[in-house]
């Protein structure tokens, strides 16, 4: 029999390595364990585990999210709503809590609240907002085609194809995403927005018959955002050189927004300077045509600028803000960056982009 020679040092090294391994995967194991308990319908046990974890790390979004899922699965709707609502307050950039709030509201027949929650989910990522608006444009065009077929009108009279909005860069928050839990946790599909009820007859509708609630899927724990990733870093605020300059820039932006709302194409397009580079390699003329089509085609536009930060450097300025856009019944929120240049007494837009 041969004795394996294990020195004390090597044993100690092994022990440390093992401990390190265990601790780094401990976190992942914790989420995994709780998730497994949820899947096994062991809600009481899952809740206990989650609560124990949260004692040490009360802010942890992942575990708090799991707790919300447990509460909902156990039928504790009020508590679940509270949990997810607090998550949206602490981590407004996460779409998943908004989605689950929508599911809960929907099951309580509070459809307007559900809709608002889902719109917030979409706004967490401006790329979703753009895709959503583009999808709306496509649905409108498909509807128009179908109506033409129904009325047997020549489809060509519908006009040119809709110009959809290009996304120019990948939303940075998505790039930072790293799976924090093992792949064994299934990410259930996000509940699709419930379409508004359609009445297929011309008679005025009586109150709609109560419909069995659609069974939307609840999103499982998010496979994104390590603990280190906080909400996107706040915009760099360079020291403001001149108060008046900032105010002028702000005034110019407000005028631009008002013109947009009013569909005043002269003043809207006039807010863009000669050096303005239209997106996607379009010529200025083509871009102006596209903007005319998009803006004049809407029946009612409401535009709000929020969280505006301006940095001025001589006759150049950069403005960053949250743009809340509502038209017809679409609402889209996006992060905007606008570069301006002062020419004479006026500030003109030279660049406009969505994202950071």
């Amino acid at each position, binding site marked *: 029999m041969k004795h394996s020679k294990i020195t004390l040092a090597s044993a100690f090294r092994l022990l440390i390595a093992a401990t390190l391994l265990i601790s780094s995967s401990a976190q992942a194991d914790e989420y995994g364990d709780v998730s497994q308990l949820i899947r096994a319908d062991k809600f009481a046990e899952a809740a206990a585990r989650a609560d124990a974890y949260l004692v040490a790390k009360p802010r942890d979004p992942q575990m708090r999210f799991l707790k919300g899922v447990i509460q909902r699965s156990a039928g504790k709707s009020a508590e679940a709503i509270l949990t997810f609502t607090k998550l949206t307050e602490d981590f407004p950039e996460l779409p998943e809590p908004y989605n689950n709030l929508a599911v809960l509201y929907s099951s309580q027949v509070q459809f307007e609240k559900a809709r608002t929650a889902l719109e917030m989910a979409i706004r967490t990522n401006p790329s979703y907002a753009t895709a959503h608006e583009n999808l709306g444009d496509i649905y*409108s065009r498909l509807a128009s085609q179908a109506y033409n077929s129904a009325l047997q009108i020549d489809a060509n009279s519908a006009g040119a194809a809709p110009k959809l909005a290009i996304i120019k860069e990948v939303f940075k928050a998505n790039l930072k995403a790293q799976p924090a839990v093992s792949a064994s946790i299934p990410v259930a599909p996000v509940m699709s927005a419930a379409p508004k009820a359609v009445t297929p007859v011309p008679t005025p509708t009586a109150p709609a018959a109560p419909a069995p609630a659609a069974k939307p899927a609840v999103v499982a724990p998010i496979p994104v955002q390590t603990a280190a990733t906080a909400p996107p870093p706040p915009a760099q605020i360079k020291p403001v050189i001149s108060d008046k300059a900032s105010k002028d820039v702000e005034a110019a932006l407000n005028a631009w927004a008002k013109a947009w709302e009013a569909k005043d194409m002269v003043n809207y397009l006039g807010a863009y300077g000669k050096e303005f580079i239209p997106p996607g390699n379009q010529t200025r003329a083509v871009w102006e045509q596209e903007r005319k089509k998009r803006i004049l085609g809407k029946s009612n536009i409401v535009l709000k600028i929020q969280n505006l930060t301006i940095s001025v450097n001589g006759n150049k300025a950069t403005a960053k803000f949250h743009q809340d856009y509502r038209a017809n019944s679409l609402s889209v929120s996006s992060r905007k960056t606008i570069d301006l240049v002062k020419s004479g007494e006026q500030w003109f837009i030279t660049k406009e982009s969505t994202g950071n």
Partner: protein
Amino acid sequence: MRFDCFMRLHFFAASIILTLCFGLANVANAKKTPASAPQTPSTNAQRSTSPPGSAEARLIEIYQLIAQSQGGLALAKADALTKDFPNFQLAQLVYGDLLASRVRPVKTLGDIPEAQLKGSEATLQQLRDESQVRLKALIERPQTGAIPSEFLTLSPANKHAIAVDASRSRLYLFENRATGLVLINDFYISIGKSGLEKTIEGDFRTPLGVYFITSNLDPKSLKDIYGSGALPINYPNILDTKRGKTGKGIWLHGTPTAQFSRPPKATDGCVVLANPDLMHIIKSVEVRTTPVVISKRLNWVSLGTAQLTKKPFEEALNAWRLAKSNGELDKVLNFYSPDFSAYGMNLPQWTPLLRNDLKKAKGRDIALKDLSMLHWTDAGETMVVTFGEVSAGRLTGPMKRQYWTRQSQQWKIFFEGVI
């Protein structure tokens, strides 16, 4: 005692949406046609051979899904339906609404923006009418076992029978089985754009009465507007002619390539069906022996009630048969109306022919084989009787048709002829 056999699932006259939610739950059961849907887009030729009634069944399924707030699934099914039947305008309308509902609230069937609708308001209204009429016919069903009272008696020679309810824009196809007449299919139809009761040539009305299919036209010889085929009927029949009605060319036919189904009141007087439905009828029925009743509103009765109604007439018919069998000319003549007219002959001119008939029969007993009796009631009361007049000892005899009318409690013949 009249027997209203229509099963009204409920009485919400004001809002069909409630009708949708409750009534449609039963539609699937009531519908006898298979609802199998083709999975891949089809050519026009294929569309003619798609299962009869399948396009409508799929449309109704979409309505049911909408009523259950399953908009997403409804949209997917509407997408598939319009791919298979791109010229089914009503399906395109519903599909348009479902797409639009993803972007804005949709308030009514065919919520088309004003700018797009301009000039097409009439078309939209016709589509809404079609929708309403289809739904109504599927919600208000005849009770099981009930048949139109017009089919008083049918013989095994009448393998099928057709009844058209113009007010419901519906055609009902029956199979004549040993147990009796059974409803096997019903389809949406279009009738004359000017409505009902054809009277003169070119009035764009559909005739009312009891008719027979006279032929089956070769589709290759037909213009596109007639679709996959045509079954002409014998308008004007003897009763129509007696009343001085004119016109011709009343057919059951299909729809043009560009239009899967037509508005409820759209034709020149013909009864128009979607091609798959027409093809099903053409494949099933026999020319010349299939009666076609066209009524403003069909009167559905139980088989038992039908039995009771026939007694008085059956007695008259039997008495005529006996008198003829016994060679009693005077008695026989009693059954003929003073205004009798056949082949341009009035009763005095017809009498010698009758006398000859009786002489040839030599007092042999006459049997009426393959007897059918169609009962038509409007301003007057008419019985259209068809039978094979077979003398005892013979195997066959001439196929005859008589038109009887009730005059002051007495049934009399005003036409007789060999068919």
